[in-house]
């Protein structure tokens, strides 16, 4: 039973889907950010796998930068959450509906 | 100076309007009159310098605008457009001279001057895009005039006016782009594979399109023009626009703006798509009949005198359309003449309605009655204009109406017979309205002491009355240049026609073909 590239791709997809579910169902912003991390991580697996199977380093590069991006996003995201929390005392996205229509 | 007179005619009022901002509001009226009088003199000068014997374009101007896309500032005037330009200048002049609104006169006059720029521009533009620019731009001042000085429903009316026309002309724009593209296709040099973009109308004239292309393009242009005219069933903006607009707005709308549509038919639809014109002749004629009879009946049912005149405009525009689609010299000449005639007469009628509105602040006919004894001069001028509107011989309208119907008779007897009821139904609503307003005893106390027309109003009305009769008796100075230009249009159509039907419908005037046609064979391959 050879584990091929497609296996990794399917795994990546499943994790991505989980991330999507999380993005859609989470109302707590912090937990929602968790889900976005999952999205990026799932892609990283695939990149590493492709890189491996093709014997090409570009995939690893991509994954490397994705990690960097994920880290930066956390910083900005938490900053925004802090500001919001200071003002409202919660980080529930249901409270963010002052603009609509 | 005559070399650039068209540009001067266009931009002088606009520049003057700019300067108008710094004029004090007490003297703005004098300023407006002066500017429009100069403009009118310039227009007359144009007429003076115009060579009636020449059928082609005169005073052509050319400035490259976007040459890489074939858009250039090309102007020119021929017999077809000359008189509408003069009419536009004339109506702006008397419009300003007889202006009675006192609210924001300054804005009004500046707007009118801008409007004048666009009106002149439309009729002298020989580049489709330049034409389109002025065509669209004319909506803005009118929107403002209706919306800012109009009646209680003014906003609805102005927005409706704007959007309806705007939507229609956008479809037309697509048609223009197609036209330019076909020209490009036709001029592709087989060596380089590169064609020439051109939006110049005269270039387009040289293009012969396959019939099905003509049909589609005709339809695209038609929507734009039909809404502007307005043709049934696209006419419903007009009663609102007229009903709500201030007097000056209605006057200019009826006298000039509506003519843009019919003018465009003659400038674009006929020579560009002769076969499609023949193909659609009868459907359009039927629409014209509906316009004539149906709107005349609706006019009869109106309670507001201004609406009567508004609907009557539509009815008359039906005759103009009919004459245009007679596709022969008599009909087209007649329709152009009727454009001018209707401009004068309906303009005058709206002015007259304005006169009574200024005095009583109502336009409902039931409020009046017996005005003939209170305001005899008013009644007389109104009567004259009414008779002109009804198309009595020796008034200006008759010449146009007669020629239009005469022209169409060659194409269809039955339709002309039905369309001819214009003279009956027209008389019905006009006489009924006149009777309600002027005849009978003066029953309403408020009407007992109405002053008759004053000097300012006469300044506008007398010239119009004189023109109405003068051109009714002696239309030749106008008919002749129109005729010459129309003959070249008809000949062009005949030469360009590709179907046998069209060849037989459009008369051959047996003149030497001046231009070599570019035939498109490659257009089919475009899609």
């Amino acid at each position, binding site marked *: 039973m050879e584990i091929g590239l497609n296996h990794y791709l399917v795994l990546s997809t499943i994790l991505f889907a989980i*991330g999507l579910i999380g993005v859609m169902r989470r109302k707590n912003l912090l937990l929602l950010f968790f889900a976005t991390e999952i999205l990026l991580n799932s892609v990283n697996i695939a990149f590493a796998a492709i890189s491996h199977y093709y014997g090409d380093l570009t995939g690893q590069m991509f994954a490397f930068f994705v990690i960097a991006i994920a880290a930066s996003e956390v910083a900005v995201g938490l900053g925004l959450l802090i500001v919001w929390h200071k003002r409202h005392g919660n980080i529930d996205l249901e409270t963010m509906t002052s603009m609509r229509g | 100076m005559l070399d650039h007179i068209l540009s001067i005619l266009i931009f002088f009022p606009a520049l003057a309007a700019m300067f108008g901002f710094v004029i004090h509001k007490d003297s703005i009226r004098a300023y407006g009159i002066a500017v429009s009088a100069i403009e009118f003199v310039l227009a007359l000068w144009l007429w003076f310098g115009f060579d009636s014997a020449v059928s082609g374009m005169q005073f052509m101007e050319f400035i*490259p605008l976007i040459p890489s896309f074939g858009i250039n500032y090309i102007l020119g005037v021929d017999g077809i457009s000359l008189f509408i330009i003069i009419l536009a200048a004339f109506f702006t002049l008397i419009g300003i001279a007889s202006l009675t609104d006192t609210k924001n006169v300054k804005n009004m006059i500046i707007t009118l001057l801008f409007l004048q720029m666009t009106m002149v521009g439309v009729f002298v533009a020989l580049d489709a895009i330049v034409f389109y620019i002025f065509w669209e731009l004319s909506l803005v001042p009118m929107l403002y005039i209706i*919306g800012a000085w109009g009646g209680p429903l003014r906003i609805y009316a102005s927005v409706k006016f704007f959007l309806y026309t705007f939507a229609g002309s956008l479809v037309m724009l697509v048609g223009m782009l197609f036209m330019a593209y076909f020209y490009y296709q036709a001029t592709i040099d087989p060596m380089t594979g590169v064609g020439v973009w051109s939006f110049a109308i005269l270039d387009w004239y040289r293009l012969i399109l396959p019939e099905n292309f003509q049909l589609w393009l005709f339809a695209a242009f038609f929507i734009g023009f039909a809404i502007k005219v307005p043709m049934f069933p696209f006419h419903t903006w007009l009663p609102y626009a007229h009903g709500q607009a201030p007097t000056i707005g209605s006057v200019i709308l009826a006298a000039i703006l509506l003519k843009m549509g019919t003018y465009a038919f003659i400038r674009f639809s006929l020579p560009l798509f002769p076969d499609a014109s023949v193909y659609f002749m009868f459907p359009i004629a039927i629409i014209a009949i509906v316009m004539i009879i149906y709107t005349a009946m609706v006019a009869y049912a109106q309670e507001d005198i201004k609406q009567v005149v508004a609907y009557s405009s539509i009815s008359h525009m039906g005759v103009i359309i009919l004459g245009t689609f007679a596709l022969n010299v008599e009909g087209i000449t007649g329709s152009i003449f009727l454009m001018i005639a209707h401009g004068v007469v309906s303009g005058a009628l709206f002015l007259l309605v304005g006169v009574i509105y200024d005095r009583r602040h109502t336009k409902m006919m039931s409020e009046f009655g017996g005005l003939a004894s209170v305001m005899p001069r008013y009644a007389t001028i109104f009567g004259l204009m009414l008779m002109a509107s009804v198309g009595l011989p020796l008034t200006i309208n008759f010449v146009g109406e007669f020629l239009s119907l005469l022209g169409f008779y060659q194409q269809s007897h039955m339709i002309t017979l039905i369309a001819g009821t214009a003279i009956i139904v027209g008389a019905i609503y006009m006489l009924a309205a006149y009777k309600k307003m002027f005849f009978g005893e003066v029953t309403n106390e408020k009407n007992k002491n109405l002053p008759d027309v004053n000097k300012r109003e006469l300044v506008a009305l007398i010239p119009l009355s004189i023109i109405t009769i003068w051109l009714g008796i002696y239309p030749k100075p106008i008919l002749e240049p129109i005729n010459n230009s129309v003959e070249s249009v008809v000949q062009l159509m005949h030469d360009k026609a590709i179907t046998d039907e069209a060849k037989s419908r459009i008369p051959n005037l047996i003149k030497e073909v001046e231009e070599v046609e570019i035939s498109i064979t490659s257009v089919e391959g475009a899609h």
Partner: protein
Amino acid sequence: MLEPVNVSLESLNLMTLAPMLIPIIGALLILIIDIAKSNLDKTLYVGISLLFLLIDFSALLSSAGVFAQDGTIMGVFDLMLIDGLAILSQFILVGASLLFIPLALTHKRFHEFSYPEFFALFLFMISGFQFMVATDNLILIFVGLETASLALYTLIAMHNRNKSFEAAVKYFTMGALAAGFFSFGAMIFYALTGSVELGQIATILEANNYADMGYVLVAVVFMLASFGFKLSLVPFHTWAPDVYEGASAAMAGYMSIVPKIAAFIVVMRMFEFLINSGVVWLEVVLYIFVVVTMTAANVWALVQTDVKRMLAYSSISHAGFVMVAILIGTTQANSALFLYWILFSFTNLGAFSMLWISRQKHLPVGQSSDHSYNKFAGMIKTAPVAATIMGLFMLSLAGLPPFALFWGKLYMISSAVTAGYTVLALIMALNSAIAGYYYLKLIVYMFMKEPVVNQDGTVYVANATMSLKTIIGFAAVGTIFAVIVVNPLLEFITAFVYNSGY
């Protein structure tokens, strides 16, 4: 063993980096100055930003000169790609930024401009966008995009009021999702071709004759979702109205132009080869996208009661309109995209600036939003010049000739016509007509109603300073006399686009 790599400095073509490095240097300078001495006036930072943007602009000019001579330049291990698209889009990016920065000099004091960091982040953001458009490497695109986006989220939030936080959080969260989509799409492309460079990807896919159509399509779907978000295509547009409303008007205007042109460039690079090699599916989907985006956004704009929100929806609609260029994919269409966007920048930035100068710190009495239509009622009476200028922008946005945007629309529709998209051309035309309504609505309020908010008109220029007025005047003049510049612009653009192979 790894061989040592020999790199000659010439082959790196470091000059290709210059335009991106200049704003970074400017940003760092600002940060350093702030560290050295705090509490300096914002005019200094505005000046520095302007200065560096101008240098950037001239650097771009020299790149343009080089491009005109030698054609496309690759640099730094072939990572940087300076072609016509990159240069044109950077001109728009930097040009619009030049127009934006002076808007910081408002009469009233707003929170974000009290930070030197604001200007630093702004310059970083520009550099991020510049990187994004000047490469065909998905990694650099991604990194540039994120740099710019993260800065942008912060800039929005720095306006410091509830709505701007809300806007920033919404934008951020959806942006994170879009980033996920992007990386997933890139991953599939990589899986397919073993490359993350768009040129390479195109070559390999074509060589394979699109054997893995399924993979390609899935990749395209995720890319579409990701850039659909950036370009605010329906249904990925939902952030746009809220973010525009939450951000300051100036920022909103800026956002309607700059991030989108960057995204357009990437989309053009990414989809053009697919469309041209006959991926019917993409054509169909893009067709649906542009039609839905144009129409739906227009329809929603109709029912808005707030001018800024209306402009937000209108910007969405314009984006849909321009997306047509991507769908058509001819040289004419791509040139039209740039022409349209340049003209749009003028007009839209002008319109938002008009909102900006009428901005008050507190809601006007009886108003529920900053820029409700009601606030502008009767403006012609109280502030005639401002009303006229605003009306001008509205007419231009509506595509009324001869104002700026008309020429863009004209050329865009013409490109549809030329490419045989007749129905699409008609839909575009009719959408312009629908759009006419809501632009007209503002004109109606300004010109035809009686004033309700105040009688002296000061509210409309409450925030005005010389620099704001200059920018608005500049935009207005550009809007009116666009016809003069269209021809040289068009020739310039067409040459650049054509020589880049698009």
